[in-house]
């Protein structure tokens, strides 16, 4: 009859359920689990397995697409990360808002491997809260099979003939920076007038933009969905190393030079394990595996020794200092960030 069947089924389901829950909980109890929050495609995930087999610490890995997204998630609460990897200006902001745990450099012996030129930078003098990870630039990558001329200026992105053939970065500061630089302003401007001019320029540009791309920009370039893209240097590096008919241009008006460092958000559960992880990342061999996979420029002197010398001097990996003369680093805009937020909302909404 029907009744016994339903009862049996429900009991069975409940039993299975309880068993699954118990087994799930049991797994959680014995291990330390580190919650790591990083940019998409910004680590060789194999090294996470290596870390686990060496230390027994499991890594829960989550990704974000922009600094702002990461900041919002951590600020609002409800999620606990032990490690995060923001950029320079965001670290400056998080320090100002007391969102980071101090880092005990004595627990990170491999810190000695970090090149001195990346230590004690303006956003975190003394490296009290962050340890360098990767650095890079923002530029234009283009497919020489599809684009004949030499690209060297932000102006091309406002040129009608490239309509629907290029993408911008779906990131507030990076895209606004492009417009500010094209107009000759500082990317850290706090002038409403200059910001609005940049905003208008981007709104004017919108019909020409194929898409505001995120992590999928590499696929788009390779599949020729787009011929040209504004990208971070490492993405260009990965593409060019596989398909040598791409080129990466550092525009003459200047662009952004950035540094991403590892931080420990305040209230992290496993601060010691976090220090262990940072120390692990600073190892020369691990840094090499990481840099090789990710394509970005390392801050690690030991890693530099292991890298392919052909990468030195290239625009996308380790550009000559001379090329970066008019490059700026982002600063935290402080309260003025609201104006940036508003401008970005209006640019996207248009």
């Amino acid at each position, binding site marked *: 009859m029907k009744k016994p069947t339903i009862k049996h089924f429900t009991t069975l*389901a409940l039993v299975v359920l309880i068993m699954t829950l118990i087994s*799930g909980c049991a797994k959680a109890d014995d291990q330390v689990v580190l919650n790591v929050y990083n940019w998409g*495609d910004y680590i060789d995930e194999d090294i996470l397995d290596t870390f686990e087999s060496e230390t027994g610490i499991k890594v829960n890995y989550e990704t974000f697409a922009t600094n702002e997204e990461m900041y919002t998630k951590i600020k609002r609460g*409800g999620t*606990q990360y032990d490690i995060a990897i923001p950029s320079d200006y965001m670290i400056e902001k998080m320090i100002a808002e007391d969102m980071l745990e101090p880092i005990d450099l004595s627990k990170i012996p491999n810190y000695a491997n970090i090149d001195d030129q990346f230590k004690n930078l303006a956003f975190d003098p003394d490296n009290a809260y962050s340890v360098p990870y990767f650095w890079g630039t923002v530029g234009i990558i283009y497919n020489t099979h599809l684009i004949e001329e030499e690209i060297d200026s932000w102006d091309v992105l406002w040129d009608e003939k490239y309509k629907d053939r290029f993408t911008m970065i779906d990131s507030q500061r990076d895209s606004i920076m492009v417009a500010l630089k094209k107009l000759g302003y500082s990317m850290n401007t706090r002038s409403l007038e200059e910001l609005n001019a940049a905003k208008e320029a981007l709104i004017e540009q919108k019909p020409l933009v194929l898409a505001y791309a*995120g992590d999928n920009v590499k696929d788009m370039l390779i599949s020729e969905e787009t011929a040209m893209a504004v990208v971070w240097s490492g993405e260009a590096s990965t593409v060019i190393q596989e398909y040598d008919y791409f080129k990466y241009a550092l525009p003459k008006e200047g662009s952004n030079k950035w540094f991403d460092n590892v931080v420990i958000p305040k209230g992290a559960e496993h601060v010691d394990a976090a220090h262990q992880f940072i120390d692990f990342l600073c190892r020369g061999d691990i840094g090499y595996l990481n840099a090789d996979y990710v394509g970005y420029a390392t801050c690690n002197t030991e890693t530099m020794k292991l890298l392919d010398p052909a990468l030195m001097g290239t625009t996308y990996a380790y550009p000559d200092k001379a090329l970066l003369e008019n490059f700026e680093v982002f600063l935290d805009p402080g309260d003025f960030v609201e104006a940036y937020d508003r401008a970005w909302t209006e640019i996207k909404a248009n």
Partner: protein
Amino acid sequence: MVSKWIKRLYTSCIFIFLYAPIVVLIAFSFNDAKTTAKWEGFTLKWYQSLFQNDYIMKSLYYTVVIAILAAVLSTIIGTFAAFGIHYMKHWRQKFVLNINAIPILNPDLVTGVSLMTLFVWLNMSLGFFTMLIAHMTFCIPYVVLSVLPKLKQMPTDVLEAAMDLGATPWDAFRKVIIPEITPGIISGALIAFTLSIDDFVISFFTTGNGVSNLSIAIYSMAKRGIKPEINALSTLMFITILILLLIINKRTSNFEEL
């Protein structure tokens, strides 16, 4: 004659439209290349890498566990709620039913965002528990709406009659009411399960700390480009659904009632 062929052509066209994307996914899950540009040979490697992908497997686990839990708990709470609502006085009943309708009528986005606001305001840690609560919140109303009509179809005084004949209230409920409303309970439970398995928006806003469900996993991967593992996943899901529907078809008399 002509109209019969037009009808057949029309129906076929629509079904081709509905199935073309699924067929493409399935076909290219066996393609030995990342892009759908060309066919480069038959391979099962994407299935392999799918099962080795911790993120997807973990998400699948959470999806099923939450769906089962949400369905069971929502059905229990919803059934009892429907019972209580059925016997309410008119204005109170209308009021409660209107509130009940809110999660159904509200766009997922608003429900998700409002629940996230609640959890953060309460300083709760977003994760498994909050996602479960969120799922139950949008499932219970459907259970209530499934069971209520069956309660309405019952003769009005059957409960009193049973108790007059000496049954305890609980017995009366168990042996008289429940058999009458069982089809409603089952259909409510199934709706709850289906909604929970497929949910994206509400889960997206109310989960955290590494707990994700299948939809969230697919979204994160799709944002980064085309991943053939997703194709493999689609094939497996398609086969599972097909089998499930065939089973249900065999067992229920009127399939459409589902």
